[in-house]
Structures are given as C-alpha cells and as structure tokens.
C-alpha cells in the first residue's frame, strides 16, 4: 500500500474528533472524552505505522510527500495543501501524538468533575490536529495555518475556565503576544515570496544560495520573531507564565511538551536559511542564552508550582533555541533535548497536576510539604522527572543537555566561551530551582491548613487513568536520552535533514561533563541548604531585590502594562475623541456654517415690499453696470 496517503489521516483523525465533539452537542457528553482519546490514539498508531514503514526505507527516500489540492491558485502565487513527512516531522509526529494521547488519557480523570469535559477534549483534539498540520506542512503558508491553529487551541484551553477573569485575560494575552510573533512569520513568508517566488520548503531551502545574505538575514530574523512568540522566548515570553491559568494537562501538553517547541522546529526546519545568514544565527543564540537564564531565574522565585515549572520550560526551550542557533552543530541536540524535555516536563506537569488534584487545586508550594507519604506514585514519577531535568547522569536530560553545552563551547571563539558558560550557569540554576520545587513539595513537614471555609485538603493518590500516563512519561524521561545517544542513533536518524557536523570543541567532552556535574552538585546543595535544612515559612519572605523582581517575571509585565497597555488606552481614547471632534467636526462645522449663513440671509426677507424693490433696483443697477463693464473690458 502507498503509505504517503496515510499522512493526511494523521491530521484528519483528531480534526474529525474536534468537529464531532464541538458540534455534537450534549448527547455526546458521556462518551465524548473516549472519542477524543481514541482518535488521538488512532493518529499515534498511524504515526507508528508510517514510522516502521520509514525505518524500512533507506535514509534518502525517507522523505514522503502527499499533495492534496491546490489551495490558493492566483496569478504568480501558488499555495498548496501538501504534506511532507521526513525524519524531523516524524519525530514530532510521534512526540505529539504519543504524549498527546497520554495526556488525553490523564485528562479523563483530571477533568472528571467538569461539566464541559466534552468540549475540553474537543479543544485538545483541535490542538493535536493543528500541531500535526504545523509539523507536516510542506510549505510555510500551510505551516502558518497550523501555527495559528495551535495558537487558537491554546487560547481556548488557557481560557477554558472562562468564568475566571484571570483565565480569560491570560488566554487573550497569550493570543495577542503570539500574534506579534505571527506578524514575523507572515512577513518572513512575504519576503520569501518576493525573493524566491514561492514559499514551499523544497524550492526555498534549496535556492538560498542564489540570493543576498541581507535578504536571508531579514527572513531569518522574522522567523526568529515568530519563534520567540510561539516558544515564549525573550522578549515575547511574558504570556507563558499566565498561561498556567489553564487546566494542568493543557500546561503539560501545550505549554511544556509540544506547542512551545514549535519555534525550535521552525528554526531547525529553516536551517539552510540560517546557515547562510550568520547574523540571524547569532541573534538566535543570543535570544536562547538570554531566555535560558531569564526563565531559570524566574523559576527560582515562583512559589506557584506551575509557574515555577513554566519558568523552567522557558529556560529549557532557551537551551533548544540556543542549540538551534549554533547551526549544524546544534540542530540535532536541539531536537533531541526537545524530545527528552517533552517527556520529563510533561511528566513533571502531570505530577504537579496530580498534586493539585489531591490538594484542592492549591498551587502554592509553601502550602505543600511532606507529600511523599500521601502520594507515592506521584512522588516517584515526579522525582524521576526531576532527576532527568537537572541532568542526573544516565537519565534523559543528562545526555541531551550535556550535548548542548558541549556544542555551545564547540561554537568556538569568544562566542563559544560565553554561550558555553551561560549554558553551564543555566544548568546550575536549573538544579537549584528544581531541587527547591522538589523539597518544598514532597519533603519537610506538611504546611497546609484548612482554608477559609474550613475544609482542609486530604492529600490522596490520583486515580489510575492519571497515574498510568505519569508512569509512562517517567519511563520515557529515564530512558529516552540514553536510548537516543547509544551510537548516536538519533543523530544519524536526523542526519539527512539537519546535516550534522561536529564543531571543534576547545574542551573535551569529558571536561564539559565534569563541569556540568560540578555545577549540578553546587545547585542542589545550595537549594538544600536553603529549603531542606530549615523549615520553610508559609508566607514568602520579602526576599532580595532580584527575588522580588523575579517573582514579577523580572518586571516584564509591568513594562508591558505601562508602555503598551496604558499607552494604547490613551492612544485609542484620544483617537476616539479626534474622530468625533475633528473628522466629524469638520463636516458638521461646514453644515452648521451654511445653516448660519442661511439664517443671516433669511433676515433680508424682511417682509417690506419697499426693501424688495430696493434689492430689485440695486440688482438692475448692478446688471446694467456689469453689462457695460463687460463691454469696457
């Protein structure tokens, strides 16, 4: 059978699910979640089929194409609905549909008591469809569709509890910030169109040699802007923290494992463009480096468990972007870290969700403590995720992150040193804040009290449907890295797409690993001294200036509020005024003045026959004089 015809089904299955669930109405309430889960599982299965089929082929003919129909045929402008499934896309397909299915499963239990569960699953399916479309598109415009599609899905899911104003606001914020990024993407596409006359991956990426570096840099920077928006990189990172307003499975799937990594996909996919535009590449690395510190610092200060994890996500993606910015040296590791991170971060979020589930949706870690006794499974899986992310030897994170740090040094020159050390520092901080989370949540004595209306939380282990996915993800986070790295499997797998080359690292791999281990230990001990030894105050201490800034996302939001929101409000208000007084006023003014003139002229009609005669007489005189003058001149 012809396998590429299956590609469309990957997208179609969850799309169908979304359609059915959202249009189906109440009658589907009881079975809706199962439909959703099954269809996402279906697309995972199809993914597996295609994967095995792909493994059967040689490395070169592994890139499949499926052309569905011509989408926007206009003079000199061809946009097709066509899919491309190569190793890179494949990796994503498996990650997305796999983790996605697990999280569907998890949500069945997690959303049990929500009367709008059916719609929740509808949205989840919609997200899967869009995300798969994003990674399967064979041209940038179709990718753009998926790109905004996932944006929409995340908007709907962040704001799922719409009755909470905070949720609605967060959703809106996420969409708007993403739109700014999307601007970048659409401008990039326009640039491609004017430069190459097309925006299909193949032609564009093959002919990068034929145009000026300036053009390519411009395109690259625009793509970077897009990536910043979607992957919450500085300066467009502000939405990710608020996005935690959404249900936890959403945070796990969309805002940890998959969607936020779309930026990395975009950059790696457009590798040829960046390779030919060093300046753009540098920009990418810088953004990555800044973000990985930024996120890490924020992660240290948050008491809200999900926000802490969000900070960590930001920082981990910073790693990937950094890697992606390194060019062929880094692409592979960017993707590899992306996958492993998908496992352990999803796991961590699900863990957090399970904790909240048992704690009446309490999110403040300072009100946790000593939970390991109450929810052992959660503890173990979370713990493994923890070890993975900090890069404990042998676990996933260790391999992927360590490789990135090496690659950073391998960049060479001062850049290499700077980037490398930043990456190391990041590793240290990661170790610190993750340990902090761990300790606050599961160790120490319990710190929770009854809330206002007197019902104290009774921590308990979550139901099977929730724990199974956690376990599976934990397995992934333990072994994935090792599995990939043995014999550089993953590298060879992606080779045809990303063309790996080893830079010349000033430091040997061993040194780097050693350094990583050292900073890791430092970070953990620091955290232990702070949170492990002494009891933790329930109310957060005021903390240092940095801490306070970090709690407020390093004042990013305040900046936005003052500059953009306030400024915007003033601008619109004044414009409304202008529209009413100036633009409208001019017209009304003319009308009024004509009216006034009329009122005055009217007075001439004073009712006295003699004055009428005067005007006639005068008129006659003028007439005569004028006629004579005409002759005179």
């Amino acid at each position, binding site marked *: 059978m012809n396998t590429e015809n299956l590609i469309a089904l990957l997208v179609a299955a969850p799309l169908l699910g979304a359609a059915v669930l959202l249009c189906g109405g109440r009658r589907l309430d009881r079975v809706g979640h199962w439909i959703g889960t099954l269809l996402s599982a279906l697309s995972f299965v199809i993914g597996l089929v295609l994967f095995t089929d792909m493994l059967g082929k040689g490395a070169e003919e592994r890139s499949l194409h499926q052309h569905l129909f011509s989408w926007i045929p206009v003079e000199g402008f061809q946009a097709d609905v066509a899919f491309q499934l190569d190793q890179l896309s494949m990796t994503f397909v498996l990650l997305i549909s796999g983790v996605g299915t697990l999280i569907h499963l998890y949500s069945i239990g997690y959303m049990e008591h929500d009367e709008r569960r059916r719609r929740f699953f509808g949205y989840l399916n919609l997200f899967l469809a869009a995300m798969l479309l994003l990674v399967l598109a064979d041209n940038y415009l179709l990718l753009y569709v998926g790109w905004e599609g996932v944006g929409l899905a995340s908007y709907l899911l962040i704001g799922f509890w719409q009755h909470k104003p905070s949720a609605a606001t967060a959703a809106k914020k996420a969409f708007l910030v993403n739109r700014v990024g999307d601007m970048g993407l659409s401008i990039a596409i326009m640039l491609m169109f004017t430069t190459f006359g097309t925006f299909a991956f193949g032609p564009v990426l093959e002919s990068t040699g034929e145009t000026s570096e300036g053009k390519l840099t411009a395109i690259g920077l625009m793509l970077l802007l897009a990536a910043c928006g979607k992957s919450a990189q500085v300066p467009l990172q502000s939405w990710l923290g608020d996005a935690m307003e959404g249900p936890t499975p959403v945070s796990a799937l969309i805002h940890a494992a998959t969607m936020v990594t779309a930026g990395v996909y975009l950059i790696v996919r457009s590798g040829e463009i960046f390779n030919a535009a060093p300046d753009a590449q540098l920009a990418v690395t810088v953004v990555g480096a800044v973000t990985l510190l930024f996120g890490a610092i924020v992660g240290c200060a948050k008491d809200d468990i999900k926000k802490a994890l969000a900070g960590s996500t930001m920082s981990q993606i910073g790693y990937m972007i950094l890697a992606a910015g390194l060019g062929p040296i880094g692409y592979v590791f960017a993707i590899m870290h992306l996958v492993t991170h998908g496992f352990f971060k999803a796991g961590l979020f699900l863990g957090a969700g399970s904790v909240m589930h048992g704690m009446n949706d309490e999110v403040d870690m300072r009100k946790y403590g000593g939970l390991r006794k109450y929810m052992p499974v959660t503890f173990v899986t979370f713990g493994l995720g923890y070890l993975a992310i900090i890069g404990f030897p042998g676990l996933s994170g260790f391999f992927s992150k360590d490789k990135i740090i090496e690659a950073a040094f391998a960049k060479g020159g001062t850049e290499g040193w700077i980037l490398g050390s930043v990456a190391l520092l990041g590793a240290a901080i990661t170790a610190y804040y993750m340990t902090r989370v761990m300790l606050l949540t599961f160790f120490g004595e319990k710190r929770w009290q009854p809330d206002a209306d007197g019902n104290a939380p009774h921590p308990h282990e979550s139901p099977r449907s929730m724990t199974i996915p956690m376990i599976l993800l934990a397995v992934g986070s333990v072994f994935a890295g090792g599995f990939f790295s043995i014999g550089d499997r993953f590298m060879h797998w992606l080779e045809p797409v990303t063309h790996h080359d080893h830079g010349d690292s000033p430091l040997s791999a061993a040194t780097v690993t050693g350094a990583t281990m050292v900073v890791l230990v430092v970070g953990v001990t620091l955290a232990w001294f702070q949170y492990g030894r002494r009891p933790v105050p329930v109310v957060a201490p005021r903390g240092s200036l940095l801490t306070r800034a970090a709690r407020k996302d390093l004042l990013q939001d305040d900046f936005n509020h003052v500059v953009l929101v306030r400024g915007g409000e003033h601008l619109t208000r004044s414009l409304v005024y202008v529209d009413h007084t100036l633009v409208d006023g001019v017209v009304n003014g003319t009308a009024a003045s004509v009216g006034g003139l009329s009122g005055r*002229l009217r007075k001439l009609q004073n009712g006295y026959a003699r004055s009428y005669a005067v*005007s006639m007489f005068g008129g006659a005189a003028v007439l005569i004089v004028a006629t004579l003058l005409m*002759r005179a001149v």
Partner: protein
Amino acid sequence: MSATAVHSLWTTAADPIDKIDAPKIEYGQLAPTLIIIGAAVLGVLIEAFVPRKFRYYVQLFVSVVALAAAFAAVVALAAGDYGTTKARIAAMGAIAVDGPALFLQGTILLAGLVAIFTFAERRLDPVAHGNRVDSFVAQAGSVPGSAGEQAATKAGFTTTEVFPLALFAIGGMLVFPAANDLLTLFIALEVFSLPLYLLCALARRKRLMSQEAAVKYFLLGAFASAFTLFGIALIYGYAGSVSYGTVAKVVDGTVTTVDPALAGTMGNDALLLIGGAMIVMGLLFKVGAVPFHMWTPDVYQGAPTPVTGFMAAATKVAAFGALLRLLYVVLPGLRWDWRPVMMGVAVITMLGGAIVAITQTDIKRLLAYSSIAHAGFILAGVIATTEEGISSVLFYLAAYSFVTIGAFAVVTLVRDAGGEATHLSKWAGLGRRSPLVAAVFAVFLLAFAGIPLTSGFSGKFAVFKAAADGGAGALVVVGVISSAIAAFFYIRVIVLMFFSEPKTDGPTVAVPSPLTMTAIGIGVAVTLVLGVAPQYFLDLAGDAGVFVR
C-alpha cells in the same frame, strides 16, 4: 445730431399716408392663443349671464374644453411641421410659430389644464352652510371676517371668475414665449401678469396674507414691467424698431438700409446694453432669479395654493421661453456681454435659493425657495448658448412644471382647523398617518432634489450637460454644490414626515375629489416617466430646439 437732420425727419414723417392695407393674420397658426382668449371672453360673458349655481360647472367645462382644444391645436401644428420646417413668423411679425414656441405652449396648456383641476377642487374645505366650497373667497370685495363675507358664504357665492382670469393669464403666457417683437412681449407680459395679481388676492382662508401677497406682487411686478418697458424704449431708440428680426440685424450690423438717424443711434452701444439689461431684468423678475426673487416667497406663501402651483409652473415656463428667445434671437450678437453677467446671476440664484431654503419653516416658502434654486439650474442651461442648451431648458421646464403643480396640490391636502397646515412642524409624522400622501410628496421632493430615476435628475443632467458642453463647466460645479445643499432641506422634510412621531393635534389629510387626484397622479406619472424613459420627450425638445428668425 444736427437740427437739419431732425427737420428732414420731420418732413418725411409728415408725408400723407394714403392707404393702410389690412393686416394679414394666420388664424390657423395662432389658433391655440385665439381659442384660449376666446374662451376667456366667453367666461366673462358666462359670469354675466349664467345663473350663479350653474356658473361653476359651466366655467369649469368651458375652460377644460378650451384648454384641451388649444392643446389639440398645438399638437396639430407640431404634427404639421410648423415647429420645424414650416416655422414661420405670423401676425405680421408679431408672433413666431416655431419649435420652442409650440413646445412651450403645449407645456403651458397642459400645466394650465392640470392647474385648473386644482382650481376646481371643492372637497377639501369643510362644507360651509351646505355649500361645497373651493379654495377661493366667496366674494372678493367683502372685508375679511365681516358680516358681508359670511353673508356671501351663506348665499353660496363662489368666485368663479377665477376660471376666465386663469384663461386670460394662460393666453398671455402662450403669447409671451412666442412674441416676436418687443411690444407684443410687453403686452403679453401684462396680459398674463394682471390676472395673476388678482388671483393671488382671492384666497378663502388667510385673506390678509392673500391680499398682502397680491399687493406686493402687483407693486413689484408693475415696478419690474416699468423697467422692461424702459428697456424696450431704449432698444427701440437704438434700433429704430421693436421687431426682433430688425433689432437682431442692427445688433449684428447686418442691417440693409441705414438712414442717418439709425446710423447715429447704432453707434451708441450704451442704449443697446442698458436697454437689453433692463428687459432681461424684467424677465429675470418673472422667473424669480436672485436678486429679483424677493417677491417669490411672500407671494407663493400668501396666494391660494392652487394659484401658487399654477404660477410657479406656468409663469416660469413662459418667462424662460421669452428669455430664451430674447437672448438667442435678439441679442446673440451680444453673447460675450450678457453671458458672464448671466453666469453671475445663475450662480447666486442657485446658491442663494438653496442656502436660504435650509432654514425655512413653512412648506410653501420652502417650495418657493426651491423654485428659485431651480431657476438657477435652468439659467445654467440658458447660458449654454447652444441648440442643446435650448432643448435642455425646454425639457427641464416641462419636467419641472408638473412636479411643482403636483407638489402644491399635495400641500392643499394637508389641513387643520385653520385651512392648509403649511407650517413644517405640522407635517411631522405624516408618513405614519397617511403613508400614501407622504410617499407621493416624497417622490416630488426627490425629483426636486434630482435623485436618479426621477424627472428632476434627467432635467438636471440635461442642463448641466449642455452647460458643460457650452464651456460653462464652472456652473456645473456650482450647480452640483448647490444641489447638495438643496438636498439637505428636501431630506429634512422627508425625515419630518417619516421618522418623527406624529403630533396628537396634527393636521388631517383631506380626501380630494378626482380632480386633484388627477393633478397629483399626472405629476407622479410625469415624474417617473421622464425619470426612467425620457428619450421620447428629449427628442421632442431636441426637435423643438430651433428658433425661427
């Protein structure tokens, strides 16, 4: 000039005139006028001999028949190519029978017929003392509000003299645009003016205003005609003749025999220019062009509404006809002198009429000002000084007159205790109370505003096109601007009728007799036909676009 020359004149003038050959009159070609005048005289006799209770019917019958017959005569003449190939100067050079003359006479006759219907309307006013009454005073001589008036009303008197008066006026109007010498012009002017003065004074309600209107109209009219006459005198002095043809020749300098006296006066252009200006002024007064318009609002408001409609329509037609003939036949040689002046007049007329109308509060005054603005538009066509200009003006006049009569006829329907409710505030919510009447009036207003698919648009387009072709593009722009201004107040009335809540003490809409219904119906029909399929009538006007000379 020298005394001897005068003496020689004297002697020549003293030669004995041995025989005067009787004038030769082409009765056939003058038939329309003669029929009307005859009917008018007959009407006077009827007043004298027919018993009072039959007069109304007899008069109505006679007038309608006369008008119909006269119109038939016009049609016959037109069919007989008297408008085109056989166009002649009749009555020993006194009257021209040509295209424009026939077209205008036809228009005037039809307008007159429709107007007569509105004159004869007797269903609108409540029955007084058991007699149906029309909108004319019972006895013109009686003092308003006096016992005499009531007695007259009780006795069921009605001023049936209005019919002969109207016929006399129509007769004068028929001659006016056809007049081919200045004397005839003047006489015709007076013949149709004097009856109108009287008609203005004959309103049944608001008699004080009616009489005031009459006085104003009369004094100012006489004042204006004095100017005209003096102008005629000057032209006569310049050309030594009052016949259009001769004057034109003299103006062009193509005159054959030049005796010394003529040579002397011909040299003096002041006579010509001043005289021409004064005659034109008299005509501009009749068409109500700024600054000779000031009588219009007052008279339109004060006169009995049917008369107002009649005046507004027929007078304009006749006066513009005369103006055209004067400018195109007598003074084409002076084109470069009068054209700029007339442009000025046209501009201030369009703008003035439109602007002042905005703040009017009385529907009749509003229509008066709108008629002033329209005079401006027509002048734009007059200025084109092309054959196309002539025909466009003819078309416009035809289109306009019926809309006007129709509009005023509608005004007569909206009444309250004090007679017609002409104050705009009274018209609020009319659309709710009687949608049909309001809709009809809206159609007329839209035609005035020149909205496409109404006769108003066709006419306006015709004259503007002619003006633009004639190189008066500036006028078109001004015309467009003033149309925009004018649109504002027409729309104000529509808003008032349809979008504002009806007042509880609002006026009632009287159900008219078939007479008024016909008048209004014809108005609507003409408005729409000339708006949608004007081609036929444009052809008529086009064929009629040549003056005989």
